């Protein structure tokens, strides 16, 4: 089930992460992690592990503690208590070792827009000590992967938002990290660009031996993950595969079109004791195991049915059932609006 299980920490430092031998050891393991900013407790004791090759997503509203957790894992912040190990090294005491093994794509751009794309990548290669002979071929490879090699000599300031994000993904991969961290990789992008970014990420999963850790507050993006942790108010409230999480909600949504909706609603109540209502022009109700319910529906419902659709619960339903609120309501505090404003402000000054 989707409850948080306290995973036992692997305390003995196993083989180096650089070898394939380490594949049994989790690539990321976090235990009892907390982070306090003044009076605010951003992270309130979380535990999880990410296996090698996995795509693991942190799903939650803004301010839930996603970015704080990623900052600790990426060595950009100290934990108040607890431990975090990334690629076989302690994220707090072995920063450099962790840094060598991770690639980062932040939610706000971290490119130098006054340099060309190639200059940005070269800067990164030198900073990460990529062997000199490998710099150009690897640059070519990662830029090809995101379809930007032809534009390598353009100033980054001439790139669109989606191109900049793609370039950042390429840069994050340049030094062949074992773990790629993506903090809200598609925030602020239009839907078409978002889906193209995901096409690149999925392609990347096929081509490189890499573990991906990402945060998102988009439900549909969480679907791309092998496993998801739902985080709310600094705590993990559920952690499992998207399928298992959705199954844990227990009920499927059934929508039927009938000749007489009012009669159908009455008959459903009478025959099955189900409360149905009209949503989106169809009689809608929730039942466990929807597919198995449909045959009974046809035999026992007297009202003629024109069409039936059964849908699994969405991650929206999952989030709702674990936190008692929708992700949009949780963000009603307006952090998204603030971010949008900040981005406009920055764009204006550039």
């Amino acid at each position, binding site marked *: 089930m989707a409850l948080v299980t306290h995973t036992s920490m692997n305390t003995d430092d196993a083989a180096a992460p650089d070898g394939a031998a380490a594949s049994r050891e989790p690539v990321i393991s976090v235990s009892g992690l907390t982070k306090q900013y003044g009076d605010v407790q951003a992270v309130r004791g979380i535990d999880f592990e990410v*296996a*090698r090759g996995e795509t693991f997503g942190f799903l939650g509203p803004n301010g839930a503690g996603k970015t704080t957790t990623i900052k600790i894992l990426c060595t950009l912040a100290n934990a108040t208590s607890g431990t975090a190990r990334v690629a076989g090294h302690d994220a707090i005491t072995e920063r450099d070792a962790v840094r*060598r093994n991770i690639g980062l794509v932040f939610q706000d751009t971290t490119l*130098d827009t006054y340099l060309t794309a190639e200059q940005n990548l070269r800067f990164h290669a030198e900073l990460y*000590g990529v062997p000199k002979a*490998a710099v150009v071929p*690897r640059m070519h490879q990662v830029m090809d992967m995101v379809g930007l090699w032809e534009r390598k000599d353009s100033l980054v300031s001439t790139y669109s938002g989606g191109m900049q994000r793609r370039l950042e993904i390429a840069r994050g991969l340049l030094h062949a990290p074992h773990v790629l961290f993506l903090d809200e990789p598609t925030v602020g992008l239009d839907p078409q660009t978002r889906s193209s970014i995901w096409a690149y990420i999925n392609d990347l999963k096929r081509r490189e031996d890499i573990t991906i850790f990402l945060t998102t507050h988009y439900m549909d993006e969480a679907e791309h993950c092998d496993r998801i942790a739902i985080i709310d108010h600094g705590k993990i409230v559920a952690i499992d595969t998207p399928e298992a999480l959705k199954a844990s909600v227990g009920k499927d949504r059934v929508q039927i079109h009938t000749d007489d909706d009012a009669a159908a609603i009455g008959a459903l109540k009478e025959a099955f004791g189900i409360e149905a209502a009209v949503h989106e022009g169809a009689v809608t109700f929730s039942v466990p195991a929807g597919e198995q319910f449909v045959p009974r529906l046809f035999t026992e419902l007297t009202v003629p049915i024109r069409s039936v659709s059964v849908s699994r619960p969405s991650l929206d339903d999952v989030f709702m059932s674990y936190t008692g609120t929708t992700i949009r309501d949780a963000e009603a505090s307006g952090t998204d609006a603030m971010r949008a404003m900040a981005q406009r402000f920055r764009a204006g000054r550039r």
Partner: protein
Amino acid sequence: MATTTTEAAAASGPGLVEQIRVAVPERGLRHDLRATGIVWRRELIRFRTDRLRAITALIQPVLFLFVLGTGLSSLAGGNMPPGISFKTFIYPGVLAMSVLFTAIFSAASIVWDREFGFLREILVAPVSRASIVIGKCLGGATIATFQGIIFLILAGFAGVPYNPVLIIVLIGELLLLSFTLTAFGVMMAARIKQFQAFMALTQMLVMPLFFLSGALYPLSGLPAWLSVLTRIDPLTYIVGPMRHAVFSHLSMPAAFEQRFSPAITWAGWAVPLGLSLGIVAVMGAGMMAIAIAEFRKTE
């Protein structure tokens, strides 16, 4: 689904992936030097592509030298020996000024980078903070010196001879000054997070530093309060040697040189030129060390 993916990745291993092997090395001196090199090179690239900055940075010293220098010549002219103008007198100080803004502005880009996120790209790199700060200070020093060299081309208009030895000495002194100024800026930028605040604070400090350095007037015969303030100003210890270098390549009566380019004194003791330059160098190194310590901190 999770398990299948994990197993597939584990089974295939790196063999399946047509990947260029890019093992990031353990940290070492060579790696740190490459980091310093690229941070330095980024400053140069940005200076080269930003011609407008180089031109605007030239405007202020040109105004001081030609407008203020020419205008005040009629006042000061009577005191000058034949062949030496007031412009010649203020040239070394204005030359020092020509690197001031470029050096500080180069450090300001750290604040800028922080606001636009690029600093984070630098700070998560597996290199020592020292290599980054040193690269930044040397980069700022280099481009500020270039800026100074542009102004150095105008030396002839101020009656300063194009003597190769003099030019080399002045460039060396400019490099030292630029380094210390950039280190000062980087130290400030490590703490100050807002661009506006940084610019306001540096502007507030830069003009007093310039005015108290003796760039526009001789340090001899000053009232006690001003005399003390000039000795506190670090810029004094570079303007003095620069003027000394220029004056030693001009022919003038010894009395005049005594009066207009006196040695910097501490309670009557003349500070040797070497010590004067040493003070500037030590200050630069000290401020750079503070900056490195600041960048080592993690939230």
